[in-house]
C-alpha cells in the first residue's frame, strides 16, 4: 500500500511540475520548479534501492546542468518574455499533436513486457552496496561502452574549448 502511495505521489508531482516548468513565463521560476522535480526523480531512484543513482541525479543534474541553465537564463535580458502572455500563437495545433502522441504511447504500452530478472536482487545490492554493484558491472561487463562514452565526452570538452578560444596568433 505505502510503496504504491509513495510512487503515485512522486509520479503525480513529477508530471505536474513538468507541466509547470514549460508553462511559466519567467524562465527563472521554471528552473526552480525543475529543481524540485529533480528531487522527486531522485526519490524514485531511492525507491528502487538505487542510492548511488539518486545522489548522482542530484549532483549532476541539479548541481551542474541546471546551474548552467540558470547562468544562461540570468545572462539573458528578460524584459519582453516577462510580459508576453502566449509565446506560440498556434498552440491548439500543438495540443492536437500532443494528444496524438499520447494515444500512440498508450497503444504502445500494451506490447510492453518485463525483461528477464537480473542477478541483482534487493538483498544482493543491500549486501555489497549499490555503489559497489554498479561499479563492478560498469568496469567489467560494460567497460567498452563506458570508455567510448568517456571518449565522446572528452571530444565534446575539447570542442568546447576550441570554439571558446580566442583567435590564436600565428
Amino acid at each position, binding site marked *: 500500500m505505502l510503496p504504491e502511495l509513495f510512487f503515485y505521489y512522486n509520479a503525480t508531482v513529477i508530471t505536474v511540475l513538468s507541466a509547470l516548468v514549460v508553462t511559466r513565463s519567467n524562465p527563472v521560476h521554471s528552473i*526552480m520548479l525543475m*529543481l524540485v522535480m529533480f528531487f522527486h526523480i531522485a526519490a524514485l531512484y531511492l*525507491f*528502487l534501492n538505487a542510492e548511488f543513482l539518486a545522489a548522482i541525479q*542530484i549532483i549532476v543534474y541539479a548541481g*551542474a546542468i541546471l546551474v548552467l541553465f*540558470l547562468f544562461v537564463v540570468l545572462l539573458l535580458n528578460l524584459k519582453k518574455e516577462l510580459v508576453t502572455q502566449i509565446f506560440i500563437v498556434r498552440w491548439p495545433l500543438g495540443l492536437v499533436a500532443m494528444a496524438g502522441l499520447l494515444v500512440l504511447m498508450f497503444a504502445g504500452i500494451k506490447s510492453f513486457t518485463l525483461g528477464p530478472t537480473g542477478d541483482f536482487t534487493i538483498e544482493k545490492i543491500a549486501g555489497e552496496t549499490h555503489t559497489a554493484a554498479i561499479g563492478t558491472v560498469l568496469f567489467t561487463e560494460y567497460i567498452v561502452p563506458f570508455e567510448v562514452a568517456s571518449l565522446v565526452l572528452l571530444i565534446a570538452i575539447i570542442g568546447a574549448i576550441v570554439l571558446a578560444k580566442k583567435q590564436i596568433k600565428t
Partner: protein
Amino acid sequence: MTGFLETMFSPGSADMILTIGTIVVKIAILIGIVLLHVAYAPYFERKVIGHMQVRMGPMRVGPHGLLQPIADGLKLFFKEDIIPAQADKSIFYISPVICLFTAMSTLAVIPIFGGFVIANINIGILFVLAMSSLGAYGIVMSGWSSNSKYAFLGGLRSSAQVISYEIAMGLSLVGVIIMSGSLNLTDIVAAQEAYPLKSFIIPQIIGFFVFCVAAMAETNRTPFDLPEAESELVAGYFTEYSGMRFALFFLAEYIGMLLMCAIAAICFLGGWNGPFEVPYIPFFWLLVKVYAFMFIYYWVRATVPRYRYDQLMSLGWKLMIPLALFNVVLTGTIKMLR
C-alpha cells in the same frame, strides 16, 4: 527503501516507533548544539581576530563580551524586514531557506562519534557533495531576486566560485574514498585506525591541502571572500536582506563552516579517534579537531589579503584541480601496487 517503508508502517511495530523517537531526539540534540555553536562562533572569531590585531574584541556586553551573541541575535530578531519593491517576492523569500536547508540537511550524515549519526547512509560523502552543490542555488537566486546590481554581481561571482572549487573539493575527497574503499563517513573513520596517527593526514597530505583551500573558497571566507568584497559589492548577494532573513544567511554560512571543519576532521584527521581515549566524552577529539580547524580559518582571515577574481579562478582551475587529479592518480597507483 521499499522494505524500509513496509517495516516502518507495519502495524504494531513498537521498535520502529522507538527508532523514530531516537532519531528525533538525535536531531534535537544536534540542532541545539549547532545553534549554540553558531551563536558563539562569531564571538570566537571576533575575539581571535581582535587579539591577532592587538585589540580586545567584544568586551561591553557581559563579562569579556560573553553575552554579545545574545544581544546580536535579539537585534537581528527585532530588526525591520525590508523587501525591495522590485524584488521577485517568492524567490526572495525562498533563497535564504535553500541556503539553510542545504547546510542543515548535511548535518544528518555527519557522525559525531561511533554510533551517533542521524542517517548512517552508504553514500555519505556523495550526499555532502550533492547538498553543497545545491547551496549555490540559494546564493545565485538571492542575488538575482533582489533586483540590485550589487547583489546580482555578488551572486554571480559567488556561484562561479562555489562551482569551480566544488570540483577540486570533490576530487580531493576521492583519494580518501580510494583509501578507505567506502563512501560511508563512519566506515571512513574506521578505515583510518590502521594508519599512522590514526588518520589519513600523512598519505593524503596533498588531498588535505586541496581540501583546506577548497573549503575556504566554498564557504566564501577570506582570502576567497570576493562575493562579499565590501569595498566593491557592499555585502554581495545578501545586500538587500535584513532582519531575520539576513540572519538565515548568516546561520547557513556558519553552519557551512562547521560542516567543512567536521568533514576535514572526519575524512583526513581521523574523526573521533585520538592519541588516547577520553572517558565519558567520546566526541572529545572530534571537537578538538573541528575547533583547531576553525581556528585556522580565523587565523587565515586575519593574515591573508583578498585574492583578485582572475587569480582566484586560475588558482582553482590551473592549480587545485590538477593537484587533486594528481593525488587521485597517485593514491590509485599505490593502492593497486600494494
